[in-house]
């Protein structure tokens, strides 16, 4: 029986189907906010669904010199990696579906997998533009990875645990300690734009320079799966940031309405609101900056982001020493 419940969680809620629907909604909100900030109307609510269905109906063209098996398998890997990462994030206040000590590191590594699949997709396409895009993806990975990891691990240092559930529990007991992580929050939000390949760091898929970047040769179902992976990655990264940096939830006391304990539902809704707030900030960042060049991006990340993350780590260590005493 337990296996049926597990299968349900992984595939339907909050697994694959829920994430697909929420990904579609998140993409719509992102595009609508982006459009409204630019003083135009924006797409209707069904636009991302329509895009997905249109891509499924198109013909798949695989270049002659490309490796067909890898070509077809990589999008599935990307989707699988991001869906798995979502299972460890605490969704109901401080409870997550599965948790163990060290799962924050696992989530971060599962989020690196999509970037590797993008690189491999571009490399195996053997097209000029795709190769340049793939090389840029990896170059960008070396720049934002270190500040992102350091930024996300700082609250873990203060909470003295590597498990996301335990971190969330710690911060909901001491909510004011989140203020000490503000610098880490800023560093993480900027670095996560690089992971999601959004402006100002959308260099690997710069449409005006290298046509389609890593996805130049992809079409049809495979491109639809890649787009779905990118959408779900947006939610997962926003959820990770919300879980680690914004843990203001209700207390664990059950709230009853008509005799039913709806406290998990309410805290889940609050979590969704937190994710949408982070997506709003990301859309704002997307509207006010231009795209940086790859060398400027590496300069920026190593000269400003990484030192800021180091300062945050220092603060966390010092505070941990003070507070534990």
């Amino acid at each position, binding site marked *: 029986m337990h296996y049926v419940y597990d299968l349900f969680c992984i595939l339907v809620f909050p697994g694959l189907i829920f994430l697909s629907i929420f990904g579609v909604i998140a993409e719509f909100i992102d595009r609508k906010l982006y459009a409204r900030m630019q003083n135009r109307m924006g797409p209707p609510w069904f636009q991302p669904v329509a895009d997905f269905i249109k891509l499924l109906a198109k013909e798949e063209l695989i270049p002659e010199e490309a490796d067909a098996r890898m070509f077809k398998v990589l999008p599935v890997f990307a989707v699988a990696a991001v869906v798995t990462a979502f299972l460890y994030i605490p969704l109901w206040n401080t409870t997550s579906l599965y948790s163990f000590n060290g799962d924050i590191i696992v989530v971060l590594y599962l989020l690196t997998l999509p970037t590797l699949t993008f690189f491999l997709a571009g490399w195996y396409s053997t097209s000029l533009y795709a190769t340049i895009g793939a090389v840029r993806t990896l170059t960008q990975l070396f720049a934002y990875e270190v500040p992102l990891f350091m930024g996300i691990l700082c609250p873990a240092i203060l909470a003295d645990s590597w498990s996301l559930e335990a971190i969330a529990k710690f911060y909901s007991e001491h909510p004011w300690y989140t203020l000490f992580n503000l610098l880490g929050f800023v560093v993480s939000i900027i670095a996560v734009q690089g992971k999601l390949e959004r*402006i100002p760091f959308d260099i690997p898929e*710069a449409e005006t320079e290298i*046509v389609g970047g890593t996805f130049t040769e992809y079409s049809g179902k495979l491109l639809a799966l890649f787009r779905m992976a990118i959408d779900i990655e947006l939610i997962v990264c926003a959820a990770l940031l919300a879980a680690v940096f914004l843990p203001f939830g209700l207390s664990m006391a059950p709230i009853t309405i008509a005799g039913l304990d709806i406290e998990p539902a309410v805290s889940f809704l609050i979590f969704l609101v937190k994710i949408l707030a982070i997506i709003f900030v990301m859309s704002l960042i997307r509207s006010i900056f231009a795209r940086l060049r790859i060398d400027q991006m590496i300069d920026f990340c190593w000269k400003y982001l990484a030192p800021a993350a180091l300062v945050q780590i220092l603060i966390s260590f010092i505070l941990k020493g003070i507070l534990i005493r």
Partner: protein
Amino acid sequence: MAKVTIPIGPQHPALKEPASFNITLDGEKILDMIVKVGYNHRGIEKACEQRTYIQDMYLIERICGICSHTHSTCFIQAVEEIAGVQMPKRGLYIRTLVAELERIHSHLLWLGVAGHEVGFDTLLMYSWRDREIVMDLLAMLTGNRVNYAINTIGGVRRDITPEQIKTTLAQVDVLEERTKYYIQVATEEITLIERLSKVGTLSHDDAIRLGAVGPTGRASGADIDVRRDDPYAAYADLSFKVCVDNHNDVLGRTIVRVSELMESYKMIRQLLKNIPEGPVVVKVPRKIPAGEALSRYEAPRGEDVHYVKANGTDKPERVRVRAPTLANVQAVAAMLKNGYLADIPIVVAAIDPCFSCTDRMMVSMKDVNASKENVIDWKTLRKYSIDWYRQNRGLDLSKIKISKRW
């Protein structure tokens, strides 16, 4: 990574019009570049010789959509000089008004395109929204948003009412507020400055040697402007500043264009305050006496030159157009030396390329049979190209049908 040769164009999302740049890369650095133009050749110069002057006006206007009034005015000025007509003052003022409005709409369009090439879509949407104000003004004054067709031989076709003058002045005030905001963005927005400065540098000596005109040349310190050096239309009566900058890079070209916008607003206000009364057109006979004339015009992109030769009939004998982009495209290779791949779109966009204007030439080819033919007819040309593609590229294009409408 080893050396790769990557083709930018003829079809590419960065280019608004087809041109071919073959770039040899080492990683992200540019080693060499080969530029080829000619994809937009439509045979307009030959078509002009078979139409009357009145019909030619509308054909010449459609050389380019953004600078259509430029080509139309330049052509008409040459024809009027051959015919020896004296234009009425009010007509000249209206012509200059539409010319300055066109300069405003072209520079705002360029600002948006430059923003889009560096990934700054917000700037694109804002500047094109403000460009709509200019387009609506032009539709109100001339009857259409592009291809205004306000010129006719001997004057302009429509007069301007006092109500239209009031509306124009009010909208120019709105535009000036928005342009001040764009100046602030261009000088203070850090990511934009990072992408635009030190990119596409063209030294002063190179600009003079390669013959750069318009804002491309003025951003490298070359002090040339046809409106001041060789005044035409109503420019002799206006007082304005020529914006010269010394940055030598894309940021300098941005600053020159945005400053020119501010100057245009001042010029429009002077024009509308001092517009004289009188007729707007004089009657010119259909047959233009024999003669030839060269006329110059400061298009938004630079200096536009038209040459017209008349022979006493109502059709011109030869029309030759030299667009400003032809003078600027030679400088692109010099600008991109030791540059980055990511800079190519913005550097090409910074000279404001209009390849529709540029592709004018009819090159007579060395004939394959070594007979002394200079003019080839359509069937010989088609056979020559099918043979060339079969020999050099292995493609067989002989099955393609030609439409019967031609």
